[in-house]
């Protein structure tokens, strides 16, 4: 590691203990690892692969929609593309994204533990994930699925002649992976905190993962039941959801959204945690309203269980049910608003550095604000009726999931990359990618709000010509977005070999994960730390204390572009 010229000041004076990466090199040592950090990397490779597949599907669709009649594919192919895009992005990228990579890697480090509570279960959850991935790829290769990621009955259980059973089997298995991860996090945060790490000294990242884990453990079984019933009805013709054999199709929608709305919070809550860490580190401030940010995560997780039927305002539910679910949906917006205000206020009188992770975090605040506000528009009953199942909804949830979760994921990945790999990425490449993602994202999805209000329904293979101009804008944006997503793939890989050595704390962040080496040793800490203060005690550091926090590898990387040159 220390053979690259130019890095001499950072070579430790003593023989460095092996890191988690070089403690063993065999394939077996990776595939049978119980180290939370290695499992995080296994997940990182896996979900990057699935993100690429989902992205290819999206790219084909966006190119196809350049012309009103459609450019590239036939109807059924298009239907399979949006289904695969949804299924893979939701269950094989977004839901595992931050928790299984950064959550797995960082929670033990942040609370001062040597691993998660159940290391073998952690590995088992990755194998379940891969088994699920195998079945979903099998379904894809055999010919695909066309039901949409929502698997609405009776279309999915009776009408579709695609590989629905295989797909629901895959998602059924995937659910157990999610449950095991959530269970592991809950037990770990309860039982494995280092001495002195009280609940209110926990980093907000841990609070948000705790809230996420509650949702994973409590909601995912309902999805498993629902999809199992869809499979049973499809294979054995038992009348559960299909009215032709005595079932109730709306029941399926209730059950599906009972999971799938909380699932939105599985996707966004970890992003809240990441953004809280980024905003505090890059403004060197205690988070404004720490308790409010922490408890708003729990409030969102709880109320999030009670809003599911806002997906069904036009599905013939009673007016009173519509009113109740609308009201509860507005209530869940309040803790989200509290978070946004507190993040913004954290910048006040801070020491703000606009490195790539912070650019992502600030982008997140803007895009999540728009996604959240359009979310409350959709919670408004009389308005939702018109835009339901149109591109307005598509734009809204992409602002939350892509503008929100994915940009936070990228921000977190850049922030903790030096911790995971020991190397700095190229800062200017990072900033360019962040800017491209932000601009490309807005150009892709903002026109879709207009398209939706004009009335273009979702899941349309072709469309009336007057919608073309907004579709062309959207596709133009998507091409920028694609470049923004592809860039990090290259410069992050490049950094593994050529990046400047990071040192333990390149960002000069507080927080236990920065007090160990980069990459950390197999057991995380030489000695389990004793915690005496909160995770964000920047204000207690005199300038000398700040200088002592760590190298300024990040600052130097900024000046030299991150490379060795």
């Amino acid at each position: 590691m220390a053979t690259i010229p130019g890095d001499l000041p950072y070579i430790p004076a003593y023989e460095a203990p092996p890191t988690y990466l070089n403690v063993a090199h065999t394939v077996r040592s990776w595939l049978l690892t119980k180290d939370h950090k290695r499992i995080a990397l296994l997940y990182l490779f896996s979900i990057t692969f699935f993100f690429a597949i989902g992205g290819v599907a999206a790219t084909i669709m966006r190119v196809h929609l350049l012309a009103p009649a459609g450019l590239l594919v036939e109807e059924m192919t298009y239907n399979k593309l949006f289904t695969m895009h949804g299924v893979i992005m939701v269950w094989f990228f977004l839901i595992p994204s931050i928790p299984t990579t950064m959550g797995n890697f960082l929670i033990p480090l942040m609370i001062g533990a040597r691993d998660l509570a159940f290391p073998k279960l952690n590995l088992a959850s990755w194998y379940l994930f891969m088994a699920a991935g195998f079945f979903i790829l099998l379904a894809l290769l055999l010919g695909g699925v066309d039901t949409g990621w929502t698997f609405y009955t009776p279309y999915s259980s009776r009408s579709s002649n695609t590989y629905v059973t295989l797909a629901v089997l895959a998602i059924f298995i995937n659910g157990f992976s999610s449950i095991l991860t959530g269970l592991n996090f809950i037990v770990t945060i309860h039982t494995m905190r280092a001495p002195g790490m009280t609940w209110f000294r926990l980093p907000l990242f841990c609070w948000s993962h705790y809230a996420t884990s509650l949702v994973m453990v409590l909601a995912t079984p309902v999805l498993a039941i629902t999809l199992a019933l869809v499979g049973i009805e499809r294979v054995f013709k038992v009348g559960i959801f299909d009215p032709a054999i005595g079932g109730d199709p709306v029941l399926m929608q209730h059950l599906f959204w009972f999971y799938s709305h909380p699932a939105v919070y599985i996707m966004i809550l970890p992003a809240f945690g990441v953004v809280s860490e980024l905003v505090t580190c890059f403004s060197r401030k205690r988070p404004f309203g720490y308790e409010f940010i922490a408890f708003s995560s729990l409030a969102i997780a709880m109320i999030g269980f009670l809003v599911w039927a806002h997906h069904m305002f036009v599905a013939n539910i009673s007016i009173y049910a519509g009113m109740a679910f609308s009201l509860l949906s507005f209530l869940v917006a309040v803790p989200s608003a509290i978070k946004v205000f507190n993040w913004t206020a954290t910048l006040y009188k801070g020491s703000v550095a606009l490195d790539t992770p912070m650019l992502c975090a600030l982008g997140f605040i803007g895009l999540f604000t728009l996604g959240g506000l359009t979310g409350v528009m959709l919670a408004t009953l009389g308005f939702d009726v018109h835009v339901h199942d149109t591109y307005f909804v598509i734009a809204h949830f992409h602002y939350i999931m892509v503008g929100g979760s994915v940009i936070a994921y990228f921000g977190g990945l850049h922030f903790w990359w030096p911790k995971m790999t020991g190397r700095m990425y190229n800062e200017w490449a990072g900033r360019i990618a962040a800017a491209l993602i932000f601009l490309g994202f807005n150009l892709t999805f903002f026109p879709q709000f207009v398209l939706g209000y004009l009335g273009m329904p979702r899941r349309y293979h072709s469309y009336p010509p007057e919608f073309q101009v907004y579709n062309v804008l959207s596709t133009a944006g998507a091409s920028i977005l694609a470049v923004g997503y592809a860039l990090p793939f290259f410069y992050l890989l490049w950094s593994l070999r050529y990046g400047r050595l990071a040192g333990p704390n390149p960002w000069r962040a507080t927080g236990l994960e920065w007090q160990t080496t980069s990459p950390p040793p197999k057991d995380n800490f030489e000695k389990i730390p004793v915690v005496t203060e909160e995770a964000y005690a920047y204000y207690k550091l005199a300038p000398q204390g700040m200088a002592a926090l760590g190298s300024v590898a990040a600052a130097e990387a900024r000046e030299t572009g991150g490379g060795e040159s």
Partner: protein
Amino acid sequence: MDESFRLFPEEASNLARDCDHLLYYLLGVSVFFTLLIFVFVVYFALRYRRKSDNEVPPLVPSPLSLEITWSVIPFILLMIMFFWGTSVYVKMKKPPADGMQINVVGKQWMWKVQHPNGAREIDELHVPIGRPIKLMMASQDVVHSFFIPAFRIKQDVIPGSFVTQWFIATKPGVYHLFCSQYCGAEHAKMIGRVIVLRPEQYEAWLAGAPPDEPPAVAGARLFVTYGCVACHAARAPTMAGLYGSRVQLDNGRSVVADDDYLRESIIEPGAKVVAGFPPIMPSYRGQLSEEQLIDLVAYIKSLGAGASTEGGVRPLPATQPANGFSPDRAPNYPPARQTPGAEPVEVEHGRLGGRPDK
């Protein structure tokens, strides 16, 4: 170019303006908060830009009063959205009693429409302005969704029940009709046109359309064909005056006999059994198409609410007035092509003669 860059769809129904006014409020709140956050984030990020690598900013207290302020103000704005949105929704969901009923059946991948006089059309819906239209909708297969952007209305059409939607068209013109719930291969082709006409144009269109049996007349024939008449009003409850009345059930509850109750009682007679009658009626699940169910219910409806007709089955009208629209009860319906009852009935196909099957 103007057309390509339009931001709002046409307002062509009484509900469209309500929805747009609601949008203006929602947009106002959204734009305000987006700009507020944007301005503060950009201002703070530039104003408090890090000046030296060893800089340590001071601790800024986070006062509770500020947290409460920025919780309460959004809460109030959200509650305004809630009440406003709910009032629009309630209006959308409460059809006026005097609406003209048009029946719509969705199936993969078309919309089949039938007007009160029996006139049919596919993937097109002709309606007059200025008059409440009540759509009674059913799905023959999977979930569809009936969406007219210019009217700001959308309703999922869910198999296994009747759903309704109403509107008053306000502006003559031709508008899009979409299916907005994914329903299979040709979902994107399950689209059509809504043609909004002036009342006299609508009457002229109706007069020119190929005549067909009105739903209540077809239903009366089905009532005989399927043997309903054998029991109802003898061993089973009479249909006369049933529609809209409150029915006492054998489990002690009671239920209003609306369209959906009648539909359910045909498909699943055991679900809600009328007090004092044995649960012996067989299920007609799978034997009747959605259109036939609509016809039967239309017939039962035509027997009136509260009126009692001897024998339960009102005699079919033998002759009818000249082609002219009337939404009223059966005796006033415009003519069918043939005199009902005078032709053989093709039971095996589940269809009656003289009806275009598509």
